[in-house]
């Protein structure tokens, strides 16, 4: 147990990586062995994430240095700066880790039945594990270059999975768009890393933050890093790939690709708060993030209500909800250098934005799964052709209603709790932004009413009389998410106190992140 706690940061990344290459060999023993292996392995990783989280909330941030003689030895004897590859796990990292792991577990269980009749399943699960490795590595890593490497891993695995159904023309097109924008934004990230390296000869985030001067080249690097991550997280006006890719990805993968967007959002926060924050006036970059967030909210939802393809509609909602997170954390970023405003409302806005990440991962992921459950049974994503499905798909309908109410911010669901935090704190920053956020919530409810009305209600259609409820593993996958949504709805105070507030503190408190690595420096 002690051993597992000490080594858990690397085991969480390394075990799925090992599994990704065992799966092709193991699938020769039959699909049942492989499925059991996958689920039990991800269950074990979930356990590791849980014990790491408990340890971090009790004892503070953790450092794991690869190849050193002890994990905490970031700087070997006689070195002023860290030289080894390093994982640095603090409150926000483990928060993202928990979110990603819960979604991955639900998506994996859901996928078991979904891909049962497809070919190339061992590659599907290999890439699934690689995608998980990419996301977890991205949120755990402590140096800029591994940020790039994990970003590329998740891009390649995500694009491969998005175009998994290569017999469909649109699936390949969505995957191609995803890999092009991922490759270009990742190369821009590498270019920015090169600019930073050229000035400071450092790669570790903590050491870079310690010596950051914020001259013109740093500004260029910041713009490239921030906007490349905004591209990956699909903020308007860089969002146009997202509906294309989310709509065509197979079920179980859409929530995962959505989570990789959330991991990119983490990278954006890490760069703006930890790498650059503190030493300069954060108001301009904060306003850039706020404006992108407001645009994402508004245009995302206005485009969503217009769609007639159920998964494109939900993809635009994913964009719109990302706007809330950008808005909440952007307000915190804008007032980062003003302690009074930060204590008054900045911290609450960030709490709301970060709480919204996990809420949205749960209900948005669940809604994607219900949309794909409909596709699984009736073979179309076109809302115009649907109707009366509630007669035969009762569980899916119940799950959809819960998800739709939660995403629209209807009390008592968890979406309301995080949106309330955002509304009331952003209102004191700028009332107009808060009013826009409330309006967006309204249109969200309207568009989900449209989906609910046209897909589930109405008389039983003759064409869909034979439609049955989806298989059990898909219901369990959605049920995991719904259980989490209900737990989060009833205990918002507990969740914010235990996991969200430490995440906010970790973002604001740049000094402790730096001291974690550079601490013993004379």
């Amino acid at each position, binding site marked *: 147990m002690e051993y597992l706690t000490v080594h858990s940061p690397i085991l969480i990344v*390394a075990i799925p990586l090992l599994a990704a290459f065992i799966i092709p060999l193991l699938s020769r023993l039959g699909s049942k062995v492989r499925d059991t292996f996958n689920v039990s392995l991800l269950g074990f990783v979930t356990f590791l994430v849980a014990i790491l989280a408990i340890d971090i909330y009790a004892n503070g941030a953790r450092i794991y240095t690869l*190849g050193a003689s*002890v994990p905490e030895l970031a700087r070997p004897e006689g070195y002023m700066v860290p030289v080894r590859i390093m994982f640095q796990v603090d409150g926000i990292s483990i928060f993202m880790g928990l979110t990603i792991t819960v979604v991955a577990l639900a998506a994996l269980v859901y996928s078991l039945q979904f891909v049962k009749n497809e070919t190339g399943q061992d590659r599907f699960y290999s890439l699934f594990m690689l995608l998980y490795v990419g996301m977890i590595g991205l949120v755990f890593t402590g140096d800029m270059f591994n940020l790039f490497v994990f970003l590329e891993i998740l891009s390649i695995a995500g694009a491969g999975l998005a175009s998994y159904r290569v017999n469909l023309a649109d699936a390949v097109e969505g995957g191609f768009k995803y890999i092009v924008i991922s490759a270009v934004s990742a190369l821009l990230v590498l270019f920015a890393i090169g600019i930073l390296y050229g000035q400071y000869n450092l790669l570790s985030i903590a050491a870079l933050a310690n010596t950051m001067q914020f001259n013109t080249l740093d500004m260029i690097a910041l713009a490239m890093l921030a906007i490349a991550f905004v591209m990956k997280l699909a903020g308007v006006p860089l969002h146009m790939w997202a509906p294309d890719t989310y709509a065509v990805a197979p079920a179980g993968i859409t929530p995962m690709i959505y989570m990789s967007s959330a991991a990119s959002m983490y990278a954006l926060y890490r760069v703006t708060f930890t790498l650059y924050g503190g030493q300069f006036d954060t108001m301009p970059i904060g306003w850039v993030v706020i404006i992108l967030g407001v645009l994402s909210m508004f245009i995302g939802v206005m485009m969503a209500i217009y769609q007639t393809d159920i998964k494109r509609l939900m993809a635009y909602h994913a964009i719109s909800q990302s706007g809330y997170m950008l808005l909440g954390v952007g307000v915190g970023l804008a007032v980062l250098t003003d302690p009074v405003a930060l204590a008054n409302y900045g911290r609450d806005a960030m709490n709301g934005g970060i709480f919204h990440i996990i809420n949205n991962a749960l209900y948005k992921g669940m809604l994607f799964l219900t949309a794909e459950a409909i596709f699984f049974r009736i073979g179309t994503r076109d809302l115009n052709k649907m109707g009366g499905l509630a007669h035969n798909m009762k569980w899916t309908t119940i799950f959809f209603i819960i998800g739709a109410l939660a995403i629209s911010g209807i009390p008592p669901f968890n979406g309301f709790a995080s949106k309330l935090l955002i509304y009331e704190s952003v209102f004191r920053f700028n009332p107009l932004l808060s009013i826009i956020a409330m309006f967006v919530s309204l249109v969200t409810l309207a568009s989900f009413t449209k989906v609910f009305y046209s897909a589930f209600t109405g008389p039983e259609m003759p064409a869909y009389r034979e439609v049955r409820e989806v298989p059990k593993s898909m219901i369990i996958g959605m049920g995991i998410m719904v259980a989490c949504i209900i737990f989060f709805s009833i205990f918002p105070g507990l969740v914010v106190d235990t996991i969200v507030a430490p995440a906010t503190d970790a973002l604001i408190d740049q000094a402790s992140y730096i001291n974690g690595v550079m601490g013993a420096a004379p």
Partner: protein
Amino acid sequence: MLSKIVRTISNQLILFILIFGLYIIMHGHVTPGGGFQGGAVVASGVVMLIAAFGSSEIKKSLRESHLSVVESSGALIFIGMAFAGMGTIFFYNFLVGTPVFGGIPPTGPNPGNVWTGGVIPLMNFGVGLKVMAGLSAIVLAMALFSSGEEMEE
């Protein structure tokens, strides 16, 4: 399929390409090169064979399932080496000082000692296996795809 001269010469030449690729892989820790570069050299030999014999001929001897196994085991060797250091820490170089690849690199002008580097030569070997199988599979799949065939049976 190209002419008989090309086929005969590429049949002879593939041996040297293989040896050169393996040399680059196994000397990766003392000279420029390493797993990826050596694997790419071997895969370029496969490209030559595909050009000389045609992809459908090569498909008979290089099966996708075999390549997949080699690729996976290469990756497993790499990660397994990293896991083997778990007694101390992940990626710990546990072979330093042992009789296996544990030598101390000599200083001063010297031809280089292969028997050094700890786990690094073994990792290079794993990466080399993975890259040669992976790249061969990629070029073979693309060649088959452009001639209208599929790789999997």
